[in-house]
């Protein structure tokens, strides 16, 4: 090997090392460092490495793993708490559970959900073998077959896949719940989704409602009669929300403490007019919706737990090079990822070819800014992008026909079933009903949908069977379930076998 070749080899290696070091410590594109395809949804934040890898660069393996697992809770803790987690971390952190740590360490999310391991990742980002229940529930006093003869012969790989049990969320699957709902008809006599019906039927106070003539905006804006008509027919106008609430710059709370409410006077609105308000205007009133939006796949990049792109100047300051680094290098080291919002083109689910791949998912992606027609956001917006078999089968499905009947006034409010009815159902807290904008909240796993949606119209057994029938889900519930889950019968048999009570 000639000395020239050696020089080239050494030089190239040093340059590559410098690039790697700069991208790790300071800023810049880190995609070459990605060690493996991330799981669905996490792929949106895979370049915000610090979101999960929170330990320092020289932390030991154990400390790094602890820090990594703590970060999971930044985004998933609320969901686990709401699920009444059947295998909570707090339960397994008690040292009396040490014998279980060696079987399956339930203190760590990463025991079952390893990241960057596409070759072993299954639905739900699960990366352990599907018979993981056997680790603890097959021997000694935890042997599930001790007092449940019905379970003899069942494979341990079927516990969490057959529609009977979930590792975290069993709110619709626990024994007493099954017994209580046993014998319900598949279709209830007057099927109506209760919270949806109440949302549709809510009354707005007539005295605060606004009309076209009440609009307060610059003359140029008022000249757009189409927009004006849309607004006048919207929920915003009905609720007394005038143009300035979104289009006028908000007063500064510190310098103008006397008037921090939305600007209302014509001169005030015109003077502070914003032609294209940001989504911040939406969030200022719709905070609960924004909070849940950031927990779902559409808006997760806005979640406060996600690390923002790195500031290269700060990175250079840490290593004492900020003053000697030319601006061109600082600019080159700016973090290009992740962008502020998810785009249609970044989706891993099938999307329509005619959907705008560059379309960012903000409030306006589903809601038109002036007509705020929630009926459009409930179906039309979804099907304008999603192109999987379940979505394609919706048109003409029994649920869709019910929605058409409701919109035509031939069925009562809440009888129709739109995409939002099942995937973004309303939640009630302190007499306020809010649409859950985390579109994934009822999907991890499917059984989470049972209590919040299915049981309003269907019996529990029918619901369990329908959700366990993958083909039926794909056909958007055209037809009857061809799968039968026996858990309700088994629970009833056990509850009546010895005449003793359950846990009530």
């Amino acid at each position, binding site marked *: 090997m000639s000395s020239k070749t050696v020089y080239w080899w050494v030089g190239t290696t040093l340059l590559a090392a410098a690039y790697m070091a700069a991208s790790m410590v300071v800023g810049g594109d880190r995609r070459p460092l990605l060690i493996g395809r991330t799981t669905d949804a996490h792929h949106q934040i895979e370049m915000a490495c610090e979101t999960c890898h929170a330990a320092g660069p020289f932390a030991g393996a154990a400390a790094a793993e602890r820090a990594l697992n703590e970060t999971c809770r930044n985004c998933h803790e609320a969901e686990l708490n709401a699920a*009444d987690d059947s295998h*909570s*971390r*707090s*339960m397994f*952190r*008690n*040292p*009396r*559970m*040490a*014998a279980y*740590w060696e079987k399956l360490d339930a203190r760590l999310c990463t025991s079952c959900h390893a990241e960057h391991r596409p070759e072993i990742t299954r639905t739900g980002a699960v990366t352990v073998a599907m018979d993981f229940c056997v680790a603890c529930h097959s021997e000694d*006093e*935890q042997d599930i077959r001790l*007092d449940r003869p019905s379970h003899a012969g069942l494979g341990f790989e079927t516990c969490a896949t057959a529609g009977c049990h979930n590792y975290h969320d069993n709110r619709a699957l*626990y024994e*007493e*719940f099954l017994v209580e709902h046993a014998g319900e008809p598949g279709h209830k006599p007057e099927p109506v989704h209760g919270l949806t019906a109440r949302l549709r039927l809510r009354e707005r106070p007539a005295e605060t409602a606004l009309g076209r003539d009440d609009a307060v905006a610059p003359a140029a804006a008022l000249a757009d009669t189409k927009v004006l008509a849309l607004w006048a027919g919207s929920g915003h106008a009905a609720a007394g929300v005038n143009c300035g609430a979104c289009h006028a710059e908000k007063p500064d709370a510190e310098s103008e403490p006397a008037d921090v409410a939305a600007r209302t006077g014509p001169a005030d609105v015109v003077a502070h007019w914003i032609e294209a308000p940001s989504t911040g205007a939406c969030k200022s009133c719709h905070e609960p919706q924004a909070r849940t939006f950031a927990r779902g796949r559409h808006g997760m990049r806005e979640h406060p737990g996600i690390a923002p792109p790195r500031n290269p100047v700060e990175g250079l300051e840490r290593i004492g090079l900020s003053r000697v680094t030319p601006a061109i290098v600082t600019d080159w080291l700016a973090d290009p990822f992740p962008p502020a919002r998810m785009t249609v083109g970044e989706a891993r689910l099938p999307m329509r070819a005619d959907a705008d791949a560059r379309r960012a998912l903000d409030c306006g992606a589903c809601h038109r800014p002036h007509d705020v027609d929630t009926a459009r956001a409930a179906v039309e917006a979804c099907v304008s992008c999603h192109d999987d078999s379940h979505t394609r089968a919706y048109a003409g499905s029994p649920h869709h026909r019910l929605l058409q009947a409701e919109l035509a006034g031939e069925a009562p409010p809440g009888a129709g079933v739109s995409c939002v009815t099942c995937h973004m159902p309303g939640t009630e807290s302190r007499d306020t009903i809010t649409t859950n904008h985390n579109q994934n909240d009822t999907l991890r796993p499917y059984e989470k949908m049972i209590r919040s949606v299915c049981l309003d119209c269907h019996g529990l057994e029918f619901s369990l069977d329908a959700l366990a029938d993958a083909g039926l889900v794909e056909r958007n519930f055209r037809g009857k379930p061809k799968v039968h889950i026996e858990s309700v019968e088994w629970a009833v048999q*056990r*509850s009546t076998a*010895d005449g*003793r*009570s*359950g*846990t*009530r």
Partner: protein
Amino acid sequence: MGRTTLDRRWAQRYPLTWGCRGVAAPNYGFRIVQRSLKMQPRTLMIAAGLAVAAVTAIGAAAQGLPYPKVADMLYRVMSADREVYTRMVVQRLTLEDKVLTASEHFEDEAALPLPAQMFRFGAETVMNNTEEFSYALLSLNPINRTNGPGTELEREGLEFVTENPDENFYGEEELGGKRYFAAVYPDRAIVEACVNCHNNHRDSSRTDLKAGDVMGGVVIRIRID
């Protein structure tokens, strides 16, 4: 429900990390004195005071109090809080005022959590915040199998307090590569509702429990190293 007090003298005579097993361990040279606890009118204020004591109990260990003493202090706080909840919340609202019920599935039924559940929620909340100490309500005849004896010490301790309901059990054990001081306190059925539920529950192996019986024990662990 009982309250255990320890003679101050042994706390001064014996080193911090020594385990002790009630009166059955004469080498340690001290006795455990069991006294009955009567409900006082200002129980809530006392409970609040004890809660403050719990916060400082672990700190007390660091300042030189022996582990049994610290465990006893923790136990008194837990025991008082549980008794207050049982008598002043659950009993009052379910049996006297009859405006609510108490149920394991309290969220589904808009009911009160059972006292044993409140105890467990407290234990799990502690585990979310510290690994310095832990506690659990266990039994040789649990409804939920997870609450049965899980270690040799737990079995030995639960058997000891069942056979010696006026005494406590102390010891040390290694779990997950770390050493712990452990104390087991007898847990009695303080109201009829406890035995009724346990006797009638299909997952319970006992049907003959009576009010006042030792149904299990509270196990408190404090990390030594």
